């Protein structure tokens, strides 16, 4: 553990859910971001609406690392029910802030931390009368106190409050009043700023703070998706909410009020994927956001789309399984399921965004791939990426980009054909041509999930059946170099014996761990896998190293499993590095594992 320093520390805020703390905490984080200092924010909330513990963690990281550090330097303990555990999680020398309106025994339990009591309730109750405002303003008051302690520019907070309440300007004054209560109290009673605090930088220019679901929703709009069908499920709900609000902004005809999009809240996940399949089959770009239980329920339909060769885009914002699991905690537990979902021989295309920016770009890629390969494509996000605000490069778009709608025959093309056969491999790439309903009489064919031959007619004949499924396998293999390529980050300190592979939301923690390990003389090349089937580079990377750590947020080393199944790599080379507690991965965890491995090797 390194000591906290200027622009390098972590604040954890312990609250009760349903009290409006998340927006106050978000505002606090954004005020640091606006100070030009990189931040990481993690919201840990319960599967409940009101009254249970929730935490918000803000890491201030001048080096711009993207993960939790694993340490807590300042604890704002607002939840009496979790005092004990919150105080315990503070590192020695850390700072504890609590509401000392009422006496609290627990704060005395640690001698090695600085305890700062602020009479939040007392001040707020004196200043505000409505019950709900008192609850909300207490949050703003601790934001003020923290701002003072960390030397955050109050005018930045003020601007943020103004932006937040732009449509309810009456609320600006009371909110700023509450901020001032805390701010002034701290200034008056404590040595401000603390040794670790915020100092303006210029490290967030060209960056934004956005969550993955908002970015994915935007990506769907940019991809030209017109049909979205879904069934509410945490943590994917906000993806569709985002798509809806983007569409309301960009896709409503000014004159007629007509919508150039259609969102359907389905009756369940089976219906949601059915709608996506129906719409895609009929030539619209369509998608469904869901989470693990939804994928399980969609399994039958996924196999249908695979076999009948119908595009479909699925966002799986993963949460902790199995079953209902911990719906508000993060995991990468659906990798294997998505890769092979449904009965019979099936295999699918997966994309692994590592952050909200990639949620945006990969959303667009997913539709291209789904239509190019006429098959379901899964974008495997998770709750950490999907629901937390991440600092990423400003999203941009190339206006020259045209969607790849794949091999769809036009009316003119059909007109010139003798006859159309749906499932023939005319181009040798395993991808047949398709037609859309209503375009041309010659385009008609009968889509079925039952046995069919290359011509598209029903069959129960062995050879005809096999011809189709063999082609399906070739087609899928052909996607290996069409999915987003892996990204290699070579070891800083020269040639490395060891490699590390990760995907998705583990990226930030792995990058940081690599840096810190390099500082300790342990060199690691890092490859981030971004798609499945695996590109050849994945094998090459592993081959080039003595051993490779495969970092995953699941119990069963699922991506490693896919590597065992789909590459020729030796099992021994692939060392699972698994984190599956439900918390976002912290860099310490990765670092400690590899250090231990290094020690083991040295003592062996």
């Amino acid at each position, binding site marked *: 553990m390194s000591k906290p320093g200027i622009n390098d520390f972590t604040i954890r805020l312990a609250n009760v859910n349903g009290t409006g703390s998340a927006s106050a905490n978000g505002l606090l984080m954004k005020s640091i971001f606006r100070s030009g200092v990189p931040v990481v924010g993690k919201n840990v909330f319960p599967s409940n609406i009101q009254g249970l513990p929730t935490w918000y963690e803000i890491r201030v990281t001048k080096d711009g690392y993207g993960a939790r550090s694993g340490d807590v330097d300042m604890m704002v303990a607002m939840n009496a029910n979790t005092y004990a555990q919150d105080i315990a999680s503070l590192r020695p020398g850390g700072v504890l802030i609590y509401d000392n309106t009422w006496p609290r025994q627990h704060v005395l339990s640690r001698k090695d931390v600085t305890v700062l009591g602020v009479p939040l309730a007392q001040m707020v109750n004196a200043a505000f009368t409505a019950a709900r405002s008192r609850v909300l303003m207490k949050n703003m008051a601790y934001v003020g106190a923290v701002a003072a302690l960390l030397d955050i520019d109050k005018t930045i907070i003020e601007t943020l409050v103004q932006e937040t309440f732009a449509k309810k300007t009456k609320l600006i004054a009371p909110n700023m009043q509450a901020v001032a209560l805390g701010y002034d109290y701290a200034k008056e009673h404590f040595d401000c700023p603390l040794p670790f605090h915020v100092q303006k930088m210029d490290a967030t220019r060209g960056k934004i703070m956005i969550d993955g679901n908002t970015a994915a929703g935007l990506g769907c709009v940019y991809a030209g998706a017109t049909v979205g069908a879904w069934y509410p499920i945490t943590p994917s709900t906000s993806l569709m909410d985002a798509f809806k609000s983007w569409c309301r902004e960009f896709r409503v005809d000014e004159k007629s009020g007509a919508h150039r999009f259609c969102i*359907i809240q389905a009756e369940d996940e*089976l219906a949601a994927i059915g709608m996506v399949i129906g719409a895609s089959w009929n030539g619209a770009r369509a998608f469904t956001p869901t989470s693990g239980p939804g994928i399980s329920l969609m399994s039958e339909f996924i196999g249908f789309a695979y076999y009948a060769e119908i595009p479909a885009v699925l966002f799986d914002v993963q949460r902790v399984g199995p079953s209902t699991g911990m719906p508000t905690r993060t995991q990468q537990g659906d990798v294997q399921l998505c890769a092979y979902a449904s009965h019979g021989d099936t295999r699918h295309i997966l994309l692994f965004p590592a952050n909200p920016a990639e949620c945006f770009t990969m959303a667009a890629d997913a539709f291209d791939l789904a239509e190019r390969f006429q098959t379901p494509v899964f974008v495997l996000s998770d709750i950490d990426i999907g629901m937390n605000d991440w600092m990423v490069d400003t999203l941009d778009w190339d206006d020259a980009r045209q969607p790849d709608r794949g091999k769809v025959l036009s009316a003119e093309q059909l007109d010139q054909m003798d006859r159309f056969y749906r499932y023939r491999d005319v181009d040798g790439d395993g991808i047949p041509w398709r037609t859309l309903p209503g375009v041309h009489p010659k385009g008609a064919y009968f889509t079925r999930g039952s046995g069919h031959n290359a011509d598209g007619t029903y069959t129960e004949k062995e050879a005809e059946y096999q011809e189709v499924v063999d082609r399906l396998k070739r087609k899928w293999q052909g996607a290996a170099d069409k999915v987003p390529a892996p990204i290699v980050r070579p070891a800083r300190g020269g040639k490395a014996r060891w490699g590390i592979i990760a995907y998705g939301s583990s990226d930030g923690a792995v990058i940081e761990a690599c840096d810190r390990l390099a500082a300790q003389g342990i060199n690691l090349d890092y490859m981030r896998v971004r798609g499945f089937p695996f590109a050849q580079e994945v094998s090459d990377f592993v081959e080039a190293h003595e051993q490779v750590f495969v970092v995953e947020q699941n119990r069963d080393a699922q991506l490693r499993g896919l590597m065992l199944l789909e590459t020729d790599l030796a099992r021994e080379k692939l060392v699972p590095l698994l984190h599956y507690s439900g918390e976002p991965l912290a860099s310490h965890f990765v670092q400690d594992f590899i250090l231990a491995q290094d020690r083991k090797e040295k003592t062996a």
Partner: protein
Amino acid sequence: MTSFAKPIIDLKNAPRNALGLTRQDYEGAMSTLCAGCGHDSITASMARAFFNLSIEPYRAVKVSGIGCSSKTTAYFLRESHGNNTVHGRMPSVATGAAVANTGLTYIGVSGDGDSLSIGLGQFAHAMRRNVNMLYVLENNGVYGLTKGQFSASADIGSVSKKGEVNELPPIDPVTLALSLGATFVARGFSGDREQLVPLIEAGLKHNGFGLIDVISPCVSFNDHPGSTKSYAHTFKYYHPAVHADYVPMAEEIKASYDAGEAVSVKLHDGGAIVLRKLDADYDPCDRAAAYAQVSERAARGEIITGLLYVDESRKDLAALKKLPKRPLNTYPYADLCPGAATLARVMDRYR
């Protein structure tokens, strides 16, 4: 589901519809159902209705689930796309297809197993959403394709071929539809094409979800004495209440019907459904009354048929979703993608 190519014979003097097409142009592959299966008669009625309405086959879309009934979409309209989906989940596929392109005519074909057991939820919710499609439920009281288990529409007391007696109350698609707010609810019988063909026409022209529950005997597993979905039983207890005709234009209505004899319901396309009451006291425009009358007849063991309820005033799904006239799937990309400049602008919100 095997489909043999049917020989296409050129009949010079065959009648032609407004598009100049013959009835043969509305046929499909050769049926592989059992000889005498009710479903085949429905298939024929379907083809006939499309012929009569002069709909271009390739502008129609056929969607179905799994079952003998669901196979039949291969046996009519050879030139339209068909989608034989998975068991019980056709309504969702139809819904997705229908919003992607509002310019085509959608027909769903299903069975009582497909719609009332595994598919009950989707069936109900497609009705609620008033998806613009014709939904033909080929109701034989059994699972034909899996060889004769009772379906959820089997009547209390109906005896299976193996001799078992059904004791569970049936799910009647008609009363279910009425209670779920469906906007076009009809019942027909595969054995009465006179009634069925115009019902199909009306259902196709209705703006919204058109349900036709068609009693369609299964000769292999449910046409024996003791069955209440046999030809014999249906013929015996069959009771037409409201006859419905689709009439393309308002003028024609006046011409063909005497005032007072018929009520007409105006349609979006300028045409109308003309209702002739065979039961004087039946009111197909009052949902509660329709429900009461249907249940009462059912309680007496009668099978009431015809266009039992219709409501053209409710929005269909496309209207509820404010979909434009132009089909979503034909918008040029430029009309969908907000572009780089817009993106740059909205990015400011995230700083």
